[in-house]
């Protein structure tokens, strides 16, 4: 992972904007930002963003690479799309935030303990395994991501919700074993493998 980062640094030297344009989803839009600040006031978890989207765009242009990619800020995005419908320049801000988070994660620069990063990874692994979400397995893995003791405590805090969901038939207590997922799961695995190959080749990631 560290090598991945070094090779990108060498490839783009000090041109972080160019790197973002080439490798981040919808990154080519960044230069269109006119710094009006509308998006900065749009994020629901606003106070939790050390650098709101407007500032991130400014930092990209200023070449503040490490600061941007190591930031927790993008991980505070709730995908609410407030910013997209309000931006006068029509930047796809949500997707750029997702793209930056994904890129930082791929380079190994994203904050290791950020709960949303960890949740997002567990979520994707969960669906990639069977083709569909297994909600029970997902919650069990979420509870125990900080180790056994923390998991038991978190499970206890959530137990009323869990019991409520089970009683009302909205959580399957046997889901860990009975969940079937997609029939063509082999095909889906092959398809995803191919998709990763193409994407990595295009973005210059080494396998």
């Amino acid at each position: 992972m560290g090598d991945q980062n070094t090779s990108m640094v060498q490839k783009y030297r000090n041109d972080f904007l160019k790197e973002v344009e080439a490798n981040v989803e919808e990154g080519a839009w960044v230069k269109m930002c006119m710094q009006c600040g509308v998006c900065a006031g749009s994020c629901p978890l606003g106070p939790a963003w050390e650098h709101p989207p407007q500032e991130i765009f400014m930092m990209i242009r200023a070449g503040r690479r490490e600061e941007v990619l190591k930031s927790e800020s993008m991980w505070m995005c709730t995908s609410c799309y407030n910013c997209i419908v309000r931006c006068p320049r029509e930047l796809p801000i949500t997707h750029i935030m997702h793209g930056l988070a994904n890129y930082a994660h791929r380079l190994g620069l994203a904050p290791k303990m950020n709960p949303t990063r960890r949740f997002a990874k567990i979520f994707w692994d969960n669906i990639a395994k069977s083709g569909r979400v297994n909600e029970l397995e997902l919650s069990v893995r979420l509870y125990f991501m900080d180790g056994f003791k923390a998991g038991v405590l978190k499970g206890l805090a959530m137990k009323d919700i869990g019991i409520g969901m089970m009683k009302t038939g909205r959580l399957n207590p046997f889901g860990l074993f009975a969940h079937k997922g997609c029939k063509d799961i082999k095909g889906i695995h092959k398809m995803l493998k191919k998709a990763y190959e193409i994407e990595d080749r295009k973005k210059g990631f080494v396998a």
Partner: protein
Amino acid sequence: MARKEYSFYPGCSSERRASASNYMVSVESMCKKLDIKLNEIPDWNCCGASIGYAQGGELPRHVMNARNLAISEQVNKGQDVVATCAACWLGAKETKDRLAHDSGLLAEANEALREAGMNLTYKGEQEVRHMVEVLIEDLGYDELKKPVVRPLEGMKIAGYVGCQTNRPFGIAGESFENPKYLDHLVEIVGAEPVTGYDQKVTCCGGALAFSEPEKSQAQIKKIVESAYDYGAEMIVTPCPVCQMNVEIYQGQINKRYGTKFNMPVTYYSQLMTVAYGGSAKEAGLNGQIVRASRLEEIAAKNR
């Protein structure tokens, strides 16, 4: 033949014994009363949801959606795709949009798609729509009103639209900041909408309800509190993630903030099923964690 037919993408949360199984039950009942036929896309897979980006990246996420759409094109020819979950709808629609405007990405998606079974090619022939969009645009409010036999008289209901049913695509003719279609639907079923509900498009935190619970619960608190302030006895929503977030965390919010929330949160399809004469069971009301007692009482009445 049914009056309308659609290619149906149910999404994971609708599966039997999953978090929105009650939504599914009521959608089936509602569609039966409205003579709408839903043809499930065979062997559909998860859309990747909004949170899939971190590990899924770009192409793998689009390919997941393209597979569903390609199966739909092959099996449910000539039908629009309909989703009941806002996040599913958004994911699939975003993929359609991106592949329509980027021929390189389209070619790559199809290259990956060939690896899956069923001999699939995605062409982009079908529209991707949300269930409420279909109800309002293809049937219209007048038609939706006709089957009402048991108006929900005297109930005051706050229409919580949330984000992803509303942005960035939304329902044609509605504003992003104050969409009114849920209020209209509430009116149609004979209840009173809370017109000034100022948190109707506030984000509940979405997937971050899991990973950032304190921050998201502060959002949810605003959403429930405002409904109480306007005298609502129930919240109604079109999105399974909204429904779950706003309903199930009320107990934790009560502990954290000393509030006394106990607000039922239902789906539009549950209101419609009851108003159309369906039973509590047909409306999936046994799936509520905060029981919708008033709605259950109405559902128990003879029509």
